[in-house]
């Protein structure tokens, strides 16, 4: 009997094979939706019956949150993707052959992300993140234009370097664990590592964490290492931008958090917190200023993702029950909001036939549903009350004020600068005189408004079981 843990891996794997084999766009798009839906149901069942963890697969409170978030956004994105890809085929930007490839890759990506989240072996986790990187590289380059190829190449090179550094860090963790746990596979199993982490050689662990932070940090999109991120978001198909921002960045962050937990248990090792706080702050402030000179709408929201990943990494770096809770909430809210924004942006770019902000205008008049959807999304992402991101940013800032007021001031500066940048551009896109083509969009609005409704709800009322679940995870993170 296959348990739910294996289920979230087996379903996407089977779907990938089927989608690679089956022709025709209509049916395969539906099959894609069905597969992600089944994965979501399986993931939700983790909360009902918890399978036992083995040497390869692990389930605990931490990764359950990540798995459910990943499969949920994966499902809604596949719904959006069906209408998006339909339009791309109509205008001939994608051929049926590429669509088949795209759908298969989408499922491989889901498989790889789920594997990274459930892997108990740190080597296996690395392999999964590498696979996820390679699949997204292939998808970013799918349009075969100059820009898409350059973006994919840049992403491939920087992503591989990051991944290589992460592997070096993983090897060092094994070296640190070997004298304590003994040779062989046991010294790479996370649930064993965590019980003995206090006895590891602290110096080796320190160096290992630096490599892991740089390596996985590249994948999270932290500031000095973020160069691949805006290009990859701007040039790939929009569903992939949504998945990249909403999910893949989180998966890399998850890997980083696992190693942070190891280090935190070793009293002689450096505290991982301050390093993450510094990188988080730099990312947040840097990306906020970069928002001002953007001319491409998808690029702009890619920089906004860097800003928010900075805030999340900052919150986890601060640590403690409240900051961890805030970080977790912010991560969830950001995933939901940012993917909703990309759903809107995808259809907007299709209506206007361009991604340049200068060629868009007056969307709320010409395409009211899309326009107001985007406005709502940007209001949410900028952190205005009463939406969910306001709530989580407020928690991050207030918990920081109590401990390190100066850091909180820098953080608030970043958030406010970003708010200004976003609204400046939003004004040009959504209001004023209409510019560019004004055709009606053939869009599915359901995923976008479902996400925004969830974010709105979270801003007003968080259900008690959710709060309790997040509190458990926050305690686990230390």
């Amino acid at each position, binding site marked *: 009997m296959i348990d739910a843990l294996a289920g979230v891996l087996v379903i996407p794997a089977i779907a990938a094979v089927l989608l690679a084999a089956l022709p025709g766009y209509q049916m395969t798009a539906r099959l894609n939706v069905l597969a992600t839906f089944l994965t979501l149901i399986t993931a939700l069942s983790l909360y009902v019956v918890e399978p036992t963890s083995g040497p390869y697969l692990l389930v605990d409170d931490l990764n359950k949150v990540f798995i459910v978030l990943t499969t949920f956004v994966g499902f809604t994105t596949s719904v959006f993707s069906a209408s998006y890809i339909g339009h791309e085929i109509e205008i001939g930007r994608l051929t049926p052959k590429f669509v088949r490839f795209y759908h298969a890759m989408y499922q491989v990506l889901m498989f790889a992300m789920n594997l990274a989240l459930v892997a108990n072996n740190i080597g296996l986790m690395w392999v999964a993140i590498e696979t996820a990187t390679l699949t997204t590289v292939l998808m970013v380059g799918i349009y075969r234009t100059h820009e898409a190829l350059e973006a994919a190449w840049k992403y491939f090179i920087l992503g591989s*370097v990051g991944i290589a*550094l992460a592997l070096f860090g993983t090897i060092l963790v094994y*070296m640190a664990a070997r004298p304590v746990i003994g040779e062989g596979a046991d*010294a790479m199993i996370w649930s064993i590592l965590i019980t003995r982490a206090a006895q590891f050689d602290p110096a080796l662990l320190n160096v290992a964490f630096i490599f892991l932070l740089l390596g996985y940090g590249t994948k999270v999109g932290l500031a000095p290492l973020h160069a691949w991120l805006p290009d990859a978001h701007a*040039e790939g198909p929009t569903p992939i931008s949504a998945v990249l921002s909403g999910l893949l960045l989180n998966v890399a962050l998850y890997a980083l958090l696992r190693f942070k937990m190891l280090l935190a248990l070793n009293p002689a090792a450096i505290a991982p917190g301050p390093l993450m706080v510094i990188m988080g702050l730099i990312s947040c402030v840097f990306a906020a200023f970069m928002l001002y000179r953007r001319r491409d709408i998808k690029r702009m929201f890619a920089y906004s993702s860097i800003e928010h990943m900075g805030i999340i990494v900052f919150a986890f770096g601060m640590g403690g029950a409240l900051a961890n809770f805030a970080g977790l909430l912010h991560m969830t809210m950001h995933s939901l909001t940012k993917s909703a924004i990309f759903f809107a942006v995808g259809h907007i770019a299709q209506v206007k036939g361009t991604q340049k902000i200068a060629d868009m205008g007056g969307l709320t008049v010409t395409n009211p549903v899309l326009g107001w959807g985007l406005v709502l999304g940007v209001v949410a992402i900028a952190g205005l009350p009463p939406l969910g991101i306001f709530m989580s940013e407020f928690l991050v800032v207030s918990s920081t004020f109590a401990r390190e007021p100066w850091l909180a001031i820098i953080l608030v500066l970043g958030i406010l600068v970003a708010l200004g940048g976003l609204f400046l551009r939003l004004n040009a896109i959504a209001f004023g005189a209409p510019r560019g083509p004004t055709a009606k969009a053939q869009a599915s609005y359901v995923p976008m408004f479902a996400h925004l409704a969830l974010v709105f709800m979270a801003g007003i009322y968080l259900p008690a079981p959710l709060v309790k679940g997040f509190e458990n995870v926050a305690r686990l993170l230390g």
Partner: protein
Amino acid sequence: MLRGNLSFDVAHLLAGSLVLVSFMQLYQDRLYALLNVYALHALVLAASVGWQAFVQDAPHLYVTAVIALVFKAIIIPTALHRIIVRLGIHREIETVVGVGPTMLLGMGLVALSMVVMLRVTAEADPLAREDLAFALAVVLLGLLMMVTRRNAVSQVVGFMSLENGLVLAATGAKGMPLVVEISVAFSVLIAFIVIGIFLFRIRERFDTVDIQALDRFRGERQ
């Protein structure tokens, strides 16, 4: 005792040679020669991994050695040779920084990796720590090569020699499970396929594999 010393010395020699070959890659200014040196790099790696398999009595490492020998030292360089001939780019490589400064930088990086790794692994067994220091040096030299070259093919070679450094580190860590070695080899394979596709496409679109030509198409400059 004699065996212990001998095994240490040979491993040391081979790992040191790998760093040396990495340096040789840095100053190759022709693609053809660069690929030959890369083949040598992979050959030294294969010997080093094979020796580790022998002294650690770990038969599964022979698999890694054979992969390094057949795949990295023979198949990839041959394929890349054919590609560059087909593309007609076996001419000079532009380096962003001159050879002199590059070599100096490389020496700095090797010194850095020695200082970092030898200091933090003071209690580990000597073979493992020196192996690790050499491996880090190879990784950093691979990175240096990737940033000082403009040509897509030589960037790929830089990336592959970086991966060789990782394999050296993984085999030096005694008893590291097979999962990782296979994954490393496998990722190289995938990477190569991806790169192959990319080079093909880049050629199709630009008639050049010079990365600078790609830079012109950067998203926001139009």
